[in-house]
Structure formats: structure tokens, C-alpha cells
């Protein structure tokens, strides 16, 4: 159908110029059209794959939704023995551990990116930059083991007593000091997403024209003021984008979190306490689910994780659009 239209158009255009060879003109554009359809097919293919996955998850988790209804999402109880399943404590675990991770990783990553790009001499920036990138290459399970054998004891013996003494009046820093738990998971995730946020921030800063930095300096800005005006403000939307990618990684991270978070399905105000994330409950229970209902509930948790990621990414996208609108027309 579209091919016909295209043919007609081509012929029409060719007529006034050279009535002798309309056929040839068509052949020239043949490759273009094939390419166009291949791209179109891939684009729809991705959309189709996504829908197929949602459909599959929905189908498998359907029994759980039938059994528990929307209450599934707001029920913190998860008990395979009594057969009561609710996802709220996992949603809570995932969101809070990821937020801790972003809160810790964002300032560190931006600081690292600023230092490496703007302040450090090349001989230092290169090896340190390489080292930071290499953090991303460490397998998740290794992070988990490090968390269990190094980070958790450190938290138990030093950081948690310290936090408890100084900020213990907050419910966040009360309760048993086990080392492993929500705080440990948040810190591990922070380390894991730092290279992502830092290296994208570096790319963003690199793309900011020198002219902005010179304009700021030329107005009598100190180095720090220049970095604030010409680099951080100018690169804000890029930093947000980098943070989204980091957050996305933190939300779905499974292995390392499973090892250090304590895996207990409950909601506790204390960051010292154990917790459970959506990803970690799947890793823990999927292989040995006792009943079909538990399997369906677990799949429903998977679907929820999928939707939460989608939701948070959409919010973040929206923020980036808003920021971009504010900076509209910024020449790069």
C-alpha cells in the first residue's frame, strides 16, 4: 500500500525532468525503502517483545491477583506457610535501598567526575578514571562477598555504633546492630552505581564548551564558583540522566543485595534492620517455591518490580524533559 504511494510519487516527480527513465529512479530508492522497513520492523519488534514479556508475567501471576486482588500491593505480609502473600515489604526494601544508594553515590560520583575532569592533572586523572570505570567490571557476586566479609563487620563494629551514638534519636539509627541489613545493601549498591553515574557525568562535563568556563572566570568567578555556574548548572540534566541509569541499576540489582540485606520480609523504620527487596526475594525463593500460589505471587513481585522501574524511569525522564526545556537552545 505504502509502496504504491511511494511509486506514484516517484513517478510523478520524475516526469517533468526526464520522462525517459522513471523506472531507474525507483531503483535508486529501493535500498532506502528496504532499510526503512528493516528499521521499522526492529522498532516494533522491541515494543512487541516488551508487550510479550508483560503478557507472560501477567499470565503467570494471574492466580495471585485473583487470590489477593489489589491488596497484594499494600500487604507487607509474606508467609509461605500460611499462604498469605503481599509485596509491600519488598517494594519498600527495593525503593529504600536504592534511595540510600543514590543519596550516597550521587555526591561522590559528581565529585569524582568534577575532580577528574576539571581539577586533576592528566597523569592522575587517567589512572584514577580507569580505576573508577573498573569498579563497573567487578561481578555482582564479588560485591556481595565483599559486603558480607568486609563491609558488614565494619558497619557492625564502627559505623553503626557511631551513627547510633550521634543520630540515635532518629528511628532510622536505632535497633540491633547486625552489620548486614538495609544500610549494608544501600552502601553496596552505592559503590556499584558510582562508576555509572561518575563516567556519564564525566562525558556530560566534557561536552560542555570551554566558553562557559572562560565566561565565568572572566566575570571574576573563583574556581569553585566557575564549576558551579559553568559545569554543574549547565550539566544538570545530564547529571539527572546519569542518576536515572544508576537508579535503574540499583533497583534491579540482585546478587549483591541478596547476600547482605538479611532477607526478612518486613518493614522496619530502622536502617540497621534486615529487609528484603523484590529482586532478592525472587532469587531466594523462586527455585524452591512450595506451592503454585507462591510461584504466582513471586511472578507478581517480578511484574511489580518491572512496573516500579518503569514508573521511576518515567518520572526521571519527565524531570529531564523539564530541565531540558529550561535550558532549551543551549548550544553545545
Amino acid at each position: 500500500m505504502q509502496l504504491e504511494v511511494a511509486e506514484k510519487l516517484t513517478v510523478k516527480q520524475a516526469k517533468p525532468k526526464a520522462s525517459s527513465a522513471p523506472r531507474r529512479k525507483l531503483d535508486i530508492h529501493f535500498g532506502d525503502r528496504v532499510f526503512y522497513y528493516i528499521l521499522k520492523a526492529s522498532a516494533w519488534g522491541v515494543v512487541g517483545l516488551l508487550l510479550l514479556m508483560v503478557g507472560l508475567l501477567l499470565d503467570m501471576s494471574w492466580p495471585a491477583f485473583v487470590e489477593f486482588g489489589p491488596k497484594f500491593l499494600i500487604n507487607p505480609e509474606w508467609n509461605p506457610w500460611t499462604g498469605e502473600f503481599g509485596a509491600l515489604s519488598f517494594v519498600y526494601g527495593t525503593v529504600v535501598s536504592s534511595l540510600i544508594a543514590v543519596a550516597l553515590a550521587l555526591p561522590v560520583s559528581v565529585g569524582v567526575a568534577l575532580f577528574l575532569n576539571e581539577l586533576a592533572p592528566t597523569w592522575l586523572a587517567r589512572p584514577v578514571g580507569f580505576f573508577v570505570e573498573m569498579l563497573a567490571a567487578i561481578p555482582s557476586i564479588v560485591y556481595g562477598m565483599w559486603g558480607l566479609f568486609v563491609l558488614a563487620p565494619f558497619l557492625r563494629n564502627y559505623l553503626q555504633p557511631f551513627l547510633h551514638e550521634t543520630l540515635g534519636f532518629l528511628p532510622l539509627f536505632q535497633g540491633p546492630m547486625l552489620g548486614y541489613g538495609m544500610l549494608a545493601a544501600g552502601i553496596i549498591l552505592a559503590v556499584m552505581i558510582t562508576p555509572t553515574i561518575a563516567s556519564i557525568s564525566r562525558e556530560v562535563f566534557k561536552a560542555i564548551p570551554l566558553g562557559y568556563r572562560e565566561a565565568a572566570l572572566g566575570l571574576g568567578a573563583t574556581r569553585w564558583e566557575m564549576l558551579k555556574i559553568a559545569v554543574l548548572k549547565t550539566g544538570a540534566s545530564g547529571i539527572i540522566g546519569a542518576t536515572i541509569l544508576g537508579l535503574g541499576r540499583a533497583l534491579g540489582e540482585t546478587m549483591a543485595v541478596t547476600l547482605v540485606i538479611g532477607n526478612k520480609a518486613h518493614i522496619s523504620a530502622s536502617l540497621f534492620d534486615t529487609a528484603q527487596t523484590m529482586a532478592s526475594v525472587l532469587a531466594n525463593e523462586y527455585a524452591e517455591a512450595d506451592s503454585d500460589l507462591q510461584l504466582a505471587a513471586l511472578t507478581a513481585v517480578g511484574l511489580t518490580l518491572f512496573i516500579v522501574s518503569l514508573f521511576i524511569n518515567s518520572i526521571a525522564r519527565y524531570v529531564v524533559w523539564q530541565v531540558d526545556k529550561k535550558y532549551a537552545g543551549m548550544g553545545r
Partner: protein
Amino acid sequence: MTSSTGPILTVENLNAYFGDFHAVKGVNLEVQRNEVVSLIGPSGCGKSTFIRCLNRLHEEVPSANCEGRVLIEGQNIYAENADPVVVRRKVGMVFQKPNPFPGLSIFENVALGLKLAGITKKSVVTEIVEWSLRKSALWDEVKDSLSSPGLSLSGGQQQRLCLARTLAVKPPVILMDEPTSALDPISTAKIEELVMELKQEVTVVIVTHNMQQASRISDKTAFFLMGELMEFDETSALFTNPKNLKTEQYITGRFG
């Protein structure tokens, strides 16, 4: 305010380098108050490097350095205790490419230098912003849209915004590095007009590779070649009666 009668800008034996490359070679120059001085010369002869030494921006390039003395109102900006941040408040700069800050409104762009200088009283800031925008002939065009982004303006308006931003901190000297080379003829004419009006209040050193522009707007003109100052004279004298053979060849279009 030291020696308000002497030259406002004195350059003594200035040499500038990029690593081993000697970009500006032993330049001596004096600029009087309220003069407009043009720097001309073929591309790559060191004009930009030279004026970037006058507000200590040159040293921001990695591996770049310079030596010599530059006196602004009698004070050596390269003296041991001179702070480049303070120097740059006294010597403003307008760049080749208009560069209003992204994310800042028109108002915020102009007010930024004041904020950096610690002037925050709202009434004072508002007054100076209006004054600066009027001085750069932009007020009438933007007075109703002060909160829209600086980057929403046209190229010519952006460059006048950059001029207003520079004027706001009232520097006695303003440097301009080919401020019109990215602009259309009408915007160019506006900037030229502004420069000629501004010299009531400030001293302007302007790089241009347009000799007509130099002869239209400047009192004195300096001709640079391969990092050396070949000739420095009244603009009319330099263009009608050059003393240096190279200058004559350049202005008659035989090279460059």
C-alpha cells in the same frame, strides 16, 4: 584609582607561551583612558593570546604561561600578591562566540557578576541590571521578558547580553575578542555603535580581523604579526601612512 591621569593599561615586555611555543613575543604597549584600541593581524598571530594575558585568562590553558608586566591603573596584575579573580573583575571580557549561561535567565545572566562580587541587595541589583541592559541597547527588547532564558535570544542579542553581563560589574577595561565575527551585519553594526558610545566610560581593547571595523571604531590600532607587535599608532595614521613595510603589505591585502 591610582594615577587617574596616566595610561590605564601598560604592557611591558610581555611574552606568552603554549608549552615551548612562543606565541607572544616581547610586546610593549600603552593604552590611555577612554580609548578604543583595535588589534589586527593575520589569524594565528597571537591576538587572542595577547588579550587573554590582560585578564590572566591565558594561564587557564594547561601548559600555558606568560611573563612580563601588565599594569592596570598602575598595578601589576602579575605581581606576586595579585589575585586573578580580582583582576578579572577589573578587566571584563566579551568572547567571539556569544556565551550566555544556559539555565540562567536574561536577568540572572546580567546579575551574575554582581552576585559573584557579593552585591546582593535586590534594589541595587535590579537598578544595575537595567542600567547595563540600557547601555548595551538591549533593554527595550527584553524588558518584558527578563525571566526567559538568555539562550532564547538571537545571536546578536545574546552578544549584547554578554556585553551587559560584562558591564554590570563596571570594569574600567573591557577586552573583546572578535565579538562580531559570529554575527550578521546588522548586529555587527549595533555592537560597533555600542563600543563607540561605551568609551565615555570604559577603555576597550578589541581584536578584529576586519580592518574596516578597526578603522571605524578605534582611536588606535595595533598590528600583530607572528606574535610580535609590528606597529602601534593612531588608527588613521596606521591605515593611511603605515611606517612598517609589513603593516603596509597587510593593510593593502598582500597577505593574511
